[in-house]
């Protein structure tokens, strides 16, 4: 990475300027080209979502006539509202349960010295990094014994008992809070619980928010879990799984499929724009992502 800025010797200023100008034009040309490539898929999806079924199978790229009814028809062809509600239930409860159980654990790991803490931390790292398929079978057998397969509960309830990735992430956030704050509060007679609620949580709000958003998105986007647990019961399908099954059921109607694709994207993008700052900070602060 070269930097010429601020260092160019006075005598070479004119040539430096023009070279810089050239760089500027070149860089931005590349940026614009890449930007077009990156945005093109979304544009094409948007355009196709307004086409009739016949038109999607032709060479034309522009919808003619514009068929807004695709967006209505998706709702009548499949129980989309219900699927959205399922997704919302899954994402909201999983996030809330995760926070209730994982914040205290992460706090203990970050701020309290106790025997076995290293071992516990290592176990959490391994649990976080192991592919979920490794443990999927016995866990599935367990939930089937409990009669909860065919619902989303096997994906929601475990969050009451902590989520390894979230614990790891929260701990990384908590570590950035200077030790002195917690110590001072303890000296002041606060219990650990009070240190957590009065000192650490208020200071780590952005980190907790970021972890929560990661969990929310993870649940919203989940495909493997719903495939495993809800495939036989479309009453419990979340919208991402419904989308994946949509084309199998309703043929090549690409117009409808793309309309549904857009509908699945929208909530995530909206949340992102509202929480952009927290989100980007969350990613960058730890160098970790969901």
């Amino acid at each position, binding site marked *: 990475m070269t930097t010429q800025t601020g260092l160019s010797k006075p005598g070479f200023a004119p040539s430096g300027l023009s070279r810089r100008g050239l760089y500027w034009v070149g860089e931005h040309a590349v940026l614009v080209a890449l930007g077009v490539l990156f945005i093109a898929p979304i544009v094409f999806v948007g355009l196709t979502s307004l086409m009739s079924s016949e038109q999607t199978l032709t060479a034309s790229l522009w919808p003619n006539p514009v068929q807004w009814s695709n967006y209505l028809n998706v709702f009548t062809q499949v129980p989309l509202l219900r699927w959205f509600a399922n997704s919302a239930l899954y994402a909201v409860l999983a996030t809330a349960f995760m926070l209730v*159980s994982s914040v205290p654990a992460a706090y203990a790991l970050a701020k309290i010295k106790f025997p076995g803490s290293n071992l516990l931390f290592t176990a959490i790292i391994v649990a976080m990094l192991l592919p979920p*398929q490794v443990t999927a079978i016995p866990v599935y057998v367990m939930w089937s014994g409990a009669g909860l397969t065919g619902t989303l509960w096997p994906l929601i309830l475990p969050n009451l*008992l902590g989520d390894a990735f979230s614990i790891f992430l929260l701990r990384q956030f908590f570590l950035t809070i200077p030790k002195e704050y917690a110590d001072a509060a303890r*000296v002041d007679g606060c219990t650990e619980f009070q240190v957590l609620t009065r000192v650490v949580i208020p200071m780590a709000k952005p980190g907790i928010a970021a972890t929560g958003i990661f969990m929310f998105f993870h649940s919203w986007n989940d495909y493997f879990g719903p495939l495993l647990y809800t495939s036989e019961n479309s009453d419990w399908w979340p919208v991402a799984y419904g989308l994946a099954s949509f084309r199998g059921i309703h043929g090549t109607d690409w117009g409808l499929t793309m309309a549904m694709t857009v509908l699945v*994207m929208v909530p995530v993008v909206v949340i992102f724009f509202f929480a952009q700052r927290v989100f980007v900070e969350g*990613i960058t602060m730890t160098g970790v992502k969901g």
Partner: protein
Amino acid sequence: MTATADVRQETLGVQTATAVRTPRYRLRRKLATLALLAPALLGLLIFFVYPLIASVYYSFTRYDLVSPPEWIGLRNYEYLFTKDPKVVIAAINTFWFVSIMVPVKIIFALLIAGLLARARAASGFWRTLFYLPALVPPVASVVAFVFLFNPGTGPVNQVLRFFGIQGPLWFNDPAWSKPSLLLLAIWVMGDIMIIFLAALLDVPREQYEAASLDGANGVQQLRYVTFPNITPVLLFALVTGIIAALQYFTEAAVASGVASGKAVVGEGTGNNLGYPGNSLLTYTEWLYVRGFSQYQLGYASALAVLLFVVSAVILVLLLRRFKAFTPEGAA
């Protein structure tokens, strides 16, 4: 923030801490710690330790969930290593994603982050634009890509045709299906791009200036200033990338299902996995097919145990080198 400031000011007044260090206090602290950790400990036991042990047990049985497990010794492993017709294909496919998709995605993310950092476009419009695809739910992005790259009528081949190029069959050709998913992976590189961007911007400006004064050219600055500074972040992206690629499932499964265009009216999802021609059959998909499509849970457990061993080896090799994953380290 004001609350914590208050706490701090109050504590300044406290001179002695001896009063609280009684045995009773220590017991209370221990109990409090345990209470804080209890849910997570229990979670680890139920959803991690127990299933690991149970998987090993099931892997020695024939088990279909209808009848109780039947002990068959090493038969599952014998079948796995000498007879399973697809496990090698599946392992090779997964290896492809680990060894090609992960580095290519990282390189692209780094290039774009570098471009954004140089062009002073690190925030606002450009950053959002390149990040946006990463937000799209994976199922939606795969469905979109299969449509865009549909060889007969998809926009990509339409555009290529406009330039006189006969496009490949993309998701419908075994030779092109994995590269098609690679393109998708590049499109959604936004999350690691953001991390790289932050790391690049964090490199102290003075280091470049010092290097420049020492006569270092662009390449040398890149090598001696930029890279040492972003190595931890690169390593992190590599580790998480490899872990994600080992369990690669959603994108491949949805791509196969949508691209095959085959109705799953009577048979079920399992039959489409791997389309076209097993080229997208990943190891975890094969585990799913054996376990939850053919209901050979015993055999699928043997596949799971093998996956555990391989992942564990990779983890041990990588974790030692990576500070954030050790108890002492913060990223």
